[in-house]
C-alpha cells in the first residue's frame, strides 16, 4: 500500500497539470480571439468614420454648389428670397440663408421653414463675429469659408451648435457680396450620414480638445464602447468626427467553442501520438510478457516437481504437467475442482479436509513439508511430500496457497528395499553366526568324544586278550566299555544333527557374477565407510567369469572382511582406502578359480594375533564374538576355496579367498 501511493500521487499531479495547461490554453485562445474581434470592429469603425467624413465633405461641397446656383439666380432675377426659401426646404441642415454685401451688410435673409427663427430673440448680430471670420477666410481663399461653431441657446432652454458658411459672390471676377449659410451641426450628421451608420452607433462632432459639439444616434452607456475619431478639416474650421459604437462585447461562447474544438483537435492528435507510442510500448511489453510467460511455462513443464495452486476456497486454480502426470488426471479434470480433490484417497478425505480447513484458516504449514498419501487415477496410492506457501497477489492480499508436490514413493521404495536387504544380510549374519558356533562346538566336542571313543575301543581290544584269564570280569568290563563307546557316539550324533539343522542351506549353490556379489554388499560397506571416513575402491570388471557359490554366505564373508579392514584403519591411518578386487587365478587340475581380495591400509596384524587369527572366540575387538574370520574360513572351505591373508606393503593387510568358477 505504502509503495503504491507516490506513484498514484505523481500520476494525479500529471493529470492536474495537464488540465491546468489546457484551461490556460483555452483562456489564451479565447482572449486572442476576442482581441482579434475587437481589432476587426475597430478597423470597421475607422472605415466608417472615414466614410462618414467623406460623406459630410461631399454634402458640404454639394451645398456650396447649390448656393453658387442661388447666387446666379439672385443676380438674374429678383426673387432671391423665393429661391432661398425653396433651397431651405430641400436642405434641412441649413437654419438660415443670408445675402450680404461686400461690407457684410445684410441685404436679404431667409430662415428655414422647419423651425422657429433660431436667432429670433437675439438677432443676427449675435453671430456676427463668426460670419466675419468665415467671410474673411472665404475672401482670402476666393472660395467657401467656414466659421468655428457657436452655441446658440434656444427658447426651450436647450441650444444648438451652429456653423456658418460664407461664399463670396463674384460678378465678372469682382466681389459683389457674400452668401452666408448657417448649418446646424446635428442636422449635418442627420442629413449627410448614412442611416445605417447611425443606427448602431453614436456620431458626434467634437472639438480637438474633446468638447462635444453635436451628436446623433442612440447612446447606450454601460455597454462596451468602441470609439473611432476622424478629423474633418474645412477652410476656416477643423472638427473631429467621433464614432461611438455600443456594440456588445465580442461573444465568448463561439470563441470558447472554437477554442475547444481546436484544443480537442490538438488533444486528439497528441492523444493519437500518445496512443501510438503507448501501443508500441504495449506491444513491446506484451512480447516481453509473452517471452517471460513462455520462459515460465518451459520452466514449469521441465519441473519434475508437481506444482499446484488453490484459491481461498480450496479450488484448484493452477497445476503444472508434472502434477498431472503424477496423479494421472488431466489438467481439465482438475482445474476448478474443489474439496475433496479427486486425487485424495477416499479413506483420507476426512483427515485431509480437516487439514485443508486449518490451512484456509491461515495456519502456515511446516517449512519442512507435509507428507501425504495421494491416489492416482487408477487408484494406486503413493506418498508425496508437500511444501506450501501463501499465494499473495499484487495488492498484498493472500488469495490462496501454492504447493510444490514431490513424489517420494520411489524414494520410499528404495529405502524399503535397502532396509530389507540390510535386514536380510543381518539375518543371514545371525544365522551364519549360529551355524559357525554350532560348527565350532561340534568340532570342539568331537575332539574329546573322539578320544573317549578311542579309549573305549582300545580298552575293549585289551579286554579281548584278558578274557583268557578272567572271562567273567572281562565280559562285564567289555559291556561297560561298549556302552561308553556307544554313548560317545550318541553324543556325536546329537551334535551332528544340531549342526545339520543349522547348516541346512549349505548346498544352495548358484551361478552369480562377482560384480553382483560386490554390488549387494556395497550399500552396507559404503554406510560404514562414510561413518569411518574410508574411501572404498572397487576393482571388478563386469565381464569376469561367474562363480558358483552360496550367495548370502559369500556376501557375508565379503562384508566381514570389509568391516575388519575398515576397522583396522579406524585410528591413525593417513590414507584410508579399502580395496575390493576380483581377479582370475591360475587353475588347479579340473577346476578354475576366481579370487576375491580385500585389502586395507590399517595397522596390520601382530605376530601373536596371526597364530590365533582363526581360533574360535578369539577377538581383538571389544564387541566382537571372535567368530567372523572363523566363519569366513568355514564358508570359503565349504566352497572348496582357500582363505589366506598377508601383509599389504607398505601398510595394512590383504585377505583373499578363492571360489570355484561356474
Amino acid at each position, binding site marked *: 500500500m505504502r509503495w503504491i501511493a507516490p506513484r498514484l500521487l505523481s500520476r494525479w499531479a500529471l493529470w492536474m497539470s495537464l488540465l491546468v495547461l489546457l484551461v490556460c490554453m483555452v483562456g489564451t485562445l479565447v482572449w486572442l480571439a476576442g482581441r482579434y474581434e475587437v481589432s476587426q470592429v475597430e478597423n470597421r469603425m475607422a472605415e466608417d468614420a472615414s466614410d462618414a467624413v467623406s460623406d459630410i465633405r461631399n454634402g458640404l461641397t454639394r451645398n456650396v454648389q447649390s448656393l453658387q446656383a442661388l447666387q446666379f439666380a439672385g443676380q438674374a432675377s429678383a426673387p432671391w428670397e423665393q429661391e432661398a426659401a425653396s433651397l431651405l426646404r430641400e436642405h434641412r441642415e441649413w437654419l438660415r440663408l443670408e445675402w450680404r454685401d461686400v461690407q457684410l451688410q445684410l441685404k436679404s435673409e431667409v430662415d428655414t421653414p422647419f423651425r422657429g427663427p433660431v436667432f429670433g430673440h437675439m438677432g443676427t448680430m449675435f453671430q456676427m463675429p463668426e460670419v466675419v471670420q468665415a467671410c474673411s477666410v472665404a475672401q482670402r481663399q476666393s472660395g467657401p469659408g467656414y466659421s468655428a461653431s457657436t452655441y446658440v441657446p434656444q427658447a426651450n432652454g436647450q441650444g444648438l451648435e451652429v456653423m456658418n458658411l460664407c461664399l463670396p459672390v463674384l460678378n465678372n471676377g469682382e466681389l459683389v457680396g457674400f452668401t452666408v449659410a448657417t448649418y446646424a451641426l446635428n442636422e449635418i450628421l442627420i442629413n449627410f450620414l448614412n442611416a445605417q451608420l447611425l443606427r448602431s452607433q453614436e456620431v458626434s462632432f467634437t472639438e480637438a480638445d474633446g468638447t462635444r459639439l453635436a451628436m446623433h444616434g442612440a447612446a447606450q452607456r454601460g455597454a462596451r464602447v468602441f470609439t473611432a475619431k476622424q478629423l474633418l478639416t474645412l477652410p476656416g474650421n477643423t472638427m473631429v468626427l467621433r464614432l461611438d459604437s455600443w456594440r456588445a462585447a465580442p461573444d465568448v461562447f463561439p470563441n470558447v467553442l472554437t477554442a475547444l474544438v481546436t484544443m480537442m483537435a490538438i488533444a486528439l492528435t497528441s492523444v493519437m501520438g500518445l496512443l501510438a507510442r503507448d501501443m508500441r510500448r504495449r506491444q513491446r511489453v506484451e512480447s516481453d510478457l509473452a517471452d517471460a510467460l513462455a520462459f515460465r511455462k518451459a520452466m514449469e513443464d521441465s519441473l519434475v516437481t508437481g506444482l499446484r495452486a488453490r484459491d481461498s476456497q480450496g479450488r484448484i486454480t493452477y497445476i503444472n504437467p508434472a502434477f498431472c502426470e503424477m496423479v494421472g488426471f488431466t489438467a481439465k479434470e482438475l482445474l476448478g475442482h474443489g474439496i475433496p480433490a479427486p486425487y485424495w484417497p477416499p479413506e483420507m478425505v476426512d483427515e485431509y479436509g480437516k487439514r485443508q480447513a486449518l490451512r484456509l484458516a491461515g495456519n502456515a504449514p511446516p517449512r519442512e513439508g507435509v507428507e501425504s498419501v495421494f491416489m492416482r487415477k487408477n487408484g494406486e496410492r503413493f506418498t508425496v511430500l508437500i511444501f506450501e506457501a501463501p499465494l499473495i497477489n499484487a495488492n498484498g492480499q493472500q488469495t490462496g496457497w501454492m504447493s510444490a508436490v514431490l513424489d517420494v514413493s520411489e524414494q520410499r521404495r528404495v529405502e524399503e528395499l535397502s532396509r530389507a536387504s540390510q535386514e536380510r544380510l543381518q539375518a543371514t549374519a545371525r544365522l551364519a553366526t549360529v551355524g559357525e558356533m554350532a560348527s565350532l562346538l561340534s568340532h570342539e566336542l568331537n575332539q574329546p568324544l573322539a*578320544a*573317549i571313543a578311542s579309549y573305549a575301543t*582300545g580298552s575293549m581290544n585289551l579286554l579281548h586278550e584278558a578274557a583268557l584269564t578272567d572271562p567273567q570280569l572281562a565280559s562285564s568290563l567289555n559291556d561297560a566299555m561298549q556302552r561308553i563307546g556307544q554313548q560317545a557316539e550318541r553324543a556325536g550324533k546329537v551334535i551332528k544333527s544340531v549342526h*545339520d539343522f543349522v547348516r541346512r542351506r549349505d548346498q544352495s549353490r548358484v551361478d552369480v557374477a562377482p560384480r553382483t556379489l560386490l554390488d549387494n554388499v556395497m550399500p552396507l560397506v559404503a554406510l560404514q565407510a562414510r561413518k569411518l571416513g574410508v574411501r572404498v575402491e572397487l576393482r571388478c570388471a563386469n565381464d569376469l567369469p561367474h562363480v558358483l557359490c552360496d550367495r548370502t554366505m559369500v556376501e557375508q564373508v565379503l562384508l566381514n572382511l570389509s568391516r575388519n579392514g575398515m576397522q583396522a584403519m579406524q585410528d591413525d591411518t593417513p590414507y584410508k582406502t579399502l580395496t575390493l578386487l576380483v581377479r582370475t587365478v591360475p587353475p588347479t587340475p579340473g577346476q578354475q578359480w576366481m579370487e576375491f581380495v580385500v585389502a586395507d591400509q590399517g595397522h596390520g596384524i601382530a605376530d601373536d594375533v596371526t597364530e590365533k587369527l582363526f581360533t574360535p572366540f578369539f577377538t581383538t575387538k571389544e564387541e566382537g564374538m571372535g567368530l567372523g574370520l572363523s566363519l569366513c574360513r568355514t564358508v570359503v572351505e565349504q566352497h572348496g576355496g582357500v582363505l589366506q591373508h598377508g601383509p599389504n606393503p607398505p601398510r595394512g593387510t590383504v585377505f583373499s579367498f578363492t571360489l570355484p568358477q561356474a
Partner: protein
Amino acid sequence: MQPTQDALVFIVDDDAGVREALAWLLRSRRLPSESFTSADAFAAFLNARPETDWRPPQPGCLLLDVRMPGMSGLALFEQLIARGLLESLPVIFLTGHADVPTAVDAVKRGAFDFCEKPFSDNALVDRVEQALQRSASTLESFKAKQSRQHNLAELTERESDVMRLVVEGLPNKLIADQLDISVRTVEVHRARVFDKMAVKSAVELANLLRN
C-alpha cells in the same frame, strides 16, 4: 595281519587328547604310532628327507586332521601328492561334521579314506590296517623294483645281451649264433645272469622283467 607288525602309524592332530587316545587305541591292536602336533611338524619331518624317491622304511599310514591352526591338513596332503607318497603312505583324514565335503573331495583326489569324529568301534583301526597293507605291498613292489634295478646294474654288457635274448625265448644255439660266440660261452653267461638276478628259470626271469 602279520605284515603290519613292523608298521608305523603317523598321527597328525593339534588336540593332545585325540593324539594320545588314538595312540593308545592303536597300541591296543599292537600298532606302533608316532604323533605330530601339527601339519607343519610333519612337513618338517618330510623335509628332513628331501630325496625325491624317499619312501618310508617300513609300511605306514597317516592319520591327518583336516582343520588345524597353521598349515591345514589339506595343504599337507597336497605336499604328499606332490612327492608321490600317497601309495606308500596312505592318508586317512579325521574330520568333524563341518569338513565332510572337504574330506570327500580329498578322497576323490587319492586319500585312502576319511573317518568322522567320534570314531566308532574298531572301524578306524580296521581301515588303518588296510592302509598299512596297501603301504606294505606298495613298498614291497617298490623294493623289488629297486633290487631288480640294482641286479640289472650288476650285469655286464654281454650278460645283458644274453639275458635279452633269453627272455625273447631263443635257445642257446641261436643266441650263440646271433652274438657270434660259442654255445659254451652262452651257457656260462646264462648261468651268471640267473645267479645275479636271483632266478632259477628263464620263465621266472621273463616274469620279473615284465613287472
